Every structure is written in structure tokens, then in C-alpha cells.
């Protein structure tokens, strides 16, 4: 609630605003209260958040180890499957909830002046809380399956950071677009479904035919999951650089993340002043 320069006032509210402290305060408050609602809102509370990836894991695990016997020749396949599901769930949850986030907060947006970017960022933050809790389960699983801690586990930090940037960019872009185009939601559901199979969640990158392995690596999620496998689960698995055929080529998935984030920011900034009236 700083005194903003009057010049900015009649163009409508901005995406970020001038008061960083209030911005951070608002984002965390919204994310925490959302998280609380999820946590205490139902009888099983947080268990549900945990159940979703675990149930998916259970089903996929049964199908691909018992029925299709796909995971037989992948070392520690169940652990990889769980870790990949958790990371993908983070991206999926952030982006899907991001799509409708502005419209769901219509009440706030139309009645209070605050930086608009708070809304999609609170969604990302909320998903990060869930990711953190889910990662605890992943690590428990990793240790339980006899993998001993290594320094390369630290690589997970930049990998998750990259994933967060990618998810945030997507959430910003989609939330701003959804205000204008209400069919973003079903479209995104389909795209996410495609992404799920296009990313190495139920399979591993090295199992792909060589002809498409490099192309598949252009997908940032594929690159992140591939590197995650190498760093966390199986040091003998190819790194992302190996899979794409040279470290320089890793710039392609990185560029996609950067472009998504930049595009999301640009679209959101452009739309921010008019979000309240277009809702």
C-alpha cells in the first residue's frame, strides 16, 4: 500500500507493483492459506495431495513391471517412476491450476488493488510446498531401495529450479490467456496429456529409438528428467548432454524454458492492467 506515482495509476494495476515487500508478503500469504485449506480442508487433508502421485505411481508401476514388463531392464525403475511422476505432477499441477487462477480470484482482482502477478506466483509457490513434501517421500524411497547418497544429488537443486521457472512461465502465460480465451482449459488438458507421454515418465530416455532421442530431448521436461535419472538414481545412465548429443545442444531445451518464461512474463505484463475488467 505504498503511495504509487500517480502517473501509473490510471493505466490500471501493474503486474508487479512498486512495493516488493508487499508483493512477497501477498504471494506467500495466498499460497500458505491455499495450502492450509488443502491441508485442513478435508478429513485426510494432506494425504490426498500425497495420494495422487502415489496412486498414479501404483497403477503405472503395476502395469509396467507386472503386465508389460517394461521396467525390467531399467535399473531401479520404480524409484525413477516415482521421482518422475512427482516432478511431472509439479509441472502439471502448477500449469493446470495456473490456467484458472485469475478467474478464480475474480473477487480479489475486482475489489483490491494489488500486483496482479501475485496470483499465478502464489499458485507456483503452493505447488512448490507440495513438491517439497512429495520429494521427502521420493528420497525415502530412494534410500529404501539401497541407493546411497552422492554429491550429484545436489544437481537436483538447479534442476528443480529450472522446472519451477518453466512451470511459472507456463502458469503466467496460460492464466493471462484464459481471461480472454476460455477454451484454454480444455486445450491445456490435452496438451498436458500429450506432454505426459512425450516426457520420460513411464519410460526412460535411453529406451527411445536413437532416431528420435535427440529430438525428444528438446522438451525441457525430458532434459530435466533425464539428468535427474543420472544424478539421483543411476550414475551409469546417460546425462542430458549425452542424450542430446553434446552439451551445447542443451541450449535448446534451456532456450525453450527461457522463451516460455519470457513470453509468459510479457503477455502477463501486457494484460495485467486490464485483467480486472476482462474477467
Amino acid at each position, binding site marked *: 500500500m505504498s*503511495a*504509487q506515482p*500517480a502517473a501509473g495509476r*490510471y493505466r490500471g494495476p501493474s503486474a508487479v507493483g512498486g512495493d516488493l515487500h*508487499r508483493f512477497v508478503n501477498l504471494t506467500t500469504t495466498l499460497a500458505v492459506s491455499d495450502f492450509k485449506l488443502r491441508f485442513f480442508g478435508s478429513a485426510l487433508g494432506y494425504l490426498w495431495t500425497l495420494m495422487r502421485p502415489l496412486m498414479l505411481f501404483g497403477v503405472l508401476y503395476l502395469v509396467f513391471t507386472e503386465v508389460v514388463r517394461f521396467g525390467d531392464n531399467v535399473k531401479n525403475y520404480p524409484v525413477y517412476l516415482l521421482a518422475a511422476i512427482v516432478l511431472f505432477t509439479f509441472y502439471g499441477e502448477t500449469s493446470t491450476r495456473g490456467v484458472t487462477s485469475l478467474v478464480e480470484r475474480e473477487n480479489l482482482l475486482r475489489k*483490491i488493488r494489488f500486483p496482479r502477478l501475485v496470483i499465478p506466483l502464489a499458485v507456483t509457490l503452493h505447488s512448490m510446498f507440495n513438491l517439497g513434501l512429495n520429494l521427502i517421500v521420493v528420497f525415502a524411497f530412494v534410500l529404501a531401495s539401497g541407493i546411497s547418497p552422492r554429491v550429484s544429488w545436489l544437481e537436483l537443486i538447479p534442476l528443480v529450479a529450472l522446472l519451477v521457472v518453466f512451470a511459472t512461465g507456463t502458469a503466467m502465460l496460460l492464466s493471462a490467456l484464459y481471461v480472454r480465451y476460455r*477454451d484454454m482449459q480444455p486445450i491445456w488438458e490435452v496438451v498436458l496429456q500429450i506432454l505426459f507421454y512425450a516426457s520420460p515418465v513411464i519410460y526412460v530416455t535411453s529406451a527411445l529409438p536413437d532416431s528420435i532421442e535427440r529430438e525428444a530431448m528438446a522438451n525441457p521436461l525430458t532434459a530435466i528428467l533425464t539428468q535427474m535419472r543420472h544424478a539421483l538414481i543411476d550414475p551409469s545412465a546417460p546425462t542430458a548432454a549425452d542424450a542430446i548429443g553434446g552439451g551445447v545442444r542443451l541450449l535448446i531445451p534451456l532456450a525453450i524454458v527461457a522463451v516460455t518464461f519470457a513470453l509468459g512474463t510479457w503477455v502477463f505484463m501486457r494484460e495485467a*492492467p486490464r485483467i*480486472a475488467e476482462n474477467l
Partner: protein
Amino acid sequence: MSLAASRPGETTARPAAGGPSAVTAIGVSKAFRLPHQRYSTLKERALHPFSSSTYDTLQALGDVSFDVGVGEFFGIVGRNGSGKSTLLKCLAGIYGVDSGEIRIDGRLSPFIELGVGFNPDLTARDNVMLNAIMLGLTRREARRRFDEIIEFAELQEFVDMKLKNYSSGMSVRLGFSVAIQVDADVLLVDEVLAVGDASFQRKCFDEFDRMRSERRTILFVTHDMNSVERFCDRAMLLEQGSMIALGAPDEVARGYNEVNFGQLASGGEGSELGAQLDARILKTWCENTAGERIVVAPQGETCIACIEVEFLKAIEEPLFVMSFRNEARQPIFKAHSAGQIVAGAFDAGDKATIRFSFENFLAPGRYTLTPEMAIWDPDYRLLDLRDDVAALIVEAANRSGGVADLPHRVEIERS
């Protein structure tokens, strides 16, 4: 009520130009685009790539200019859809404006409605923290003022109850209590006085007086003319996005009543009794003794209710009745022509104006007029009747509580 009495004369317009101004709007305009066919999906847009450019423009605000002084209570009134809330949102910076300039001196409260963002599934405690932070307090400030907020709302026993179990009055109280903690120089509030029960309302009024003494500026939107007259130093009336009055609250309140009921009052296009009329009522209105049409009539003066009628057949000895109903739709007063005058005979095509004059001792309030015309043929036969076709607003300095304020004397005889 007593507050109004404690500030005699203060309700008259305080010249805003005299002191420094807190809020200045110069020629503010705002239009919304309303597409004829709303292409809100990509599919539709792809199917009709060129037709999406047709839209109506709704001029929500047109060239609104005003100036609110520091420490002033400024009311914004108008009918639904007149642009009040749009104006408030433009001032608050929630909407951008198309043209014009808004200048605000001092810190502006970032919210325009009480209890925004309250979540029914969170407890009062969580909601207060959330709301306070939304309104701009830091977490620490919010925690420090928490007790004060709950105490003001008188909800100490219910702090850990979920808001969905609160009554609507309780949650509005909570909203108000949080809102007054905001350290803003300029507060913009939408419909704030419709809160709580009588005792809480009293506290709110006291709070307003405190803010006034702290020279905070408050702009508020309301439909309640009583609170405008009670609190505002000045007020402005919006109608279809334009400012049509700006000045003393009592004048603006009168103007509001006129735009609100004026349409009705100037009417005459009431419901038809049937297709086959022998005579019909053309117009219904009120006027004063000078012959000017009025909607607002001061109590105690002569008021004249008029109808203009047209005869479609020859009619002898018609009767005319004018009924006045109050807002509770109780018939308060009926004026009859029968027994007062001999109407005589009318030919087909004749027109006549009938005037019912009376000393206006109706209690202050809003009345609707229902004229009727009938003949004895041989029983009472209605020729035409127009229900509630016109309105009359009676104004008086005091409200006695009765439905009529008959002139009376009081004597005391000691024995």
C-alpha cells in the same frame, strides 16, 4: 440520528477549493467494450476471424470531474448501473481510465469493499490475517493489531470458528474491523454503511467521526440517502456515467430521489384496464401551487395531484379518485371527486384535467399515486385505473413516526 443533530449546519457544502485537495478527477472517461457476439473461445475466433470487431461501447463514465478536499467525507450516489462503482474502481486504480486524469494525494486504501477475500473455510483468525495482509499491513503489524480487530468486531468467542458458520452480520463486522486498521489517508468504500445491528452501526459511526477528526478523506458509494445526509460534507450524483449534481448532501439526495422516481412520476403509460375503454387516464403528475411539476414535495405546503383524462365515449357524471400508498403499500389517503363537485357530461373526444389539492401532512417518505375513473352505471363501474403510475416524495425536517403528521396543538392544563 443524534449524530446528525450534534453537527448542525456542518452538512452544508464545505468548499473543496478552500483547502488542499486529496482526490482530483479531471475529465475522467471510461468505456467498456461489449462485443455483440462474445468470441471468448479460440474456436469461435478461428471460425469468425473478421466478425469479432463488432461491439457496443458502454460509456460507463463520461467526462467526470470533481475535487475532494483533505478530510472531506464525499458521497457518490446514483442508481444501479450509473457508474458509481466504476468510478471508485478507477480511483482505486483497479481499472485504467480511457482519458482524463486522476490525482490522489496521500496513501490510498487499496480496497473498495469490506471483507474482500474472506474465505468461508478458514477461521476468523486466518481470515483476519489474510485480509489485513491483502489490505497492506505487514504480517507483524497484522499480528499486533489482531486483538484490537477482534475486540472491535466483538467476536472474541468466535475467533477460531470457521467463517462459513458466521452470520452475515458477523462477517461484515469482521470486515469493517479489519478495514479501519488500514493506515490510509484516502479511503474508498463501496456500500459500507449497510453493516451490522444498531449498536455496531453506532460504533461504525463513531469510527467515522474519529476518521473525520484525523482528517482522513473518505469517498463512499451508497444508496442510502440518510447516511449521505448524515455523514457527507458533499456528495455527487451520477446518472448514466455523467455527473448530474455535485454539492450539499441534502440537495444531492433530493436529486437522487428525483432521478430514481422521476421516471415513474413523469409517466402515465400505466397498465391498460382492458382493450375497450370508454375513457382513459392520459397523464398523472403532481404540481405545486405555482403550477410547476414536482416530484419532491415539502411537508406542510399545498400539493396538487393531477390527472389528464380523455373520453372516448359520451360519459355523464364520471367520478375521479386519487389514492396515495406509502412504501409499505398501505393506502394512506384517498381523494374523491364524488360529493365535492358535479362533473357534468363529457362528449367523446373531450379531454379534461382534474386537480386534487390537499395540504400535505403526509409523513416524510415515498408515495405512489393510483388514479382511477369510474361511473355509476347503475353500479360502480371502473372506467380506467392506473396502479402506482406516479410517485411523490414528501420531505420534512423530522420524522414523527406516524403515517401522517397532522397539524395539531398541545395544551397542558394543570389541575
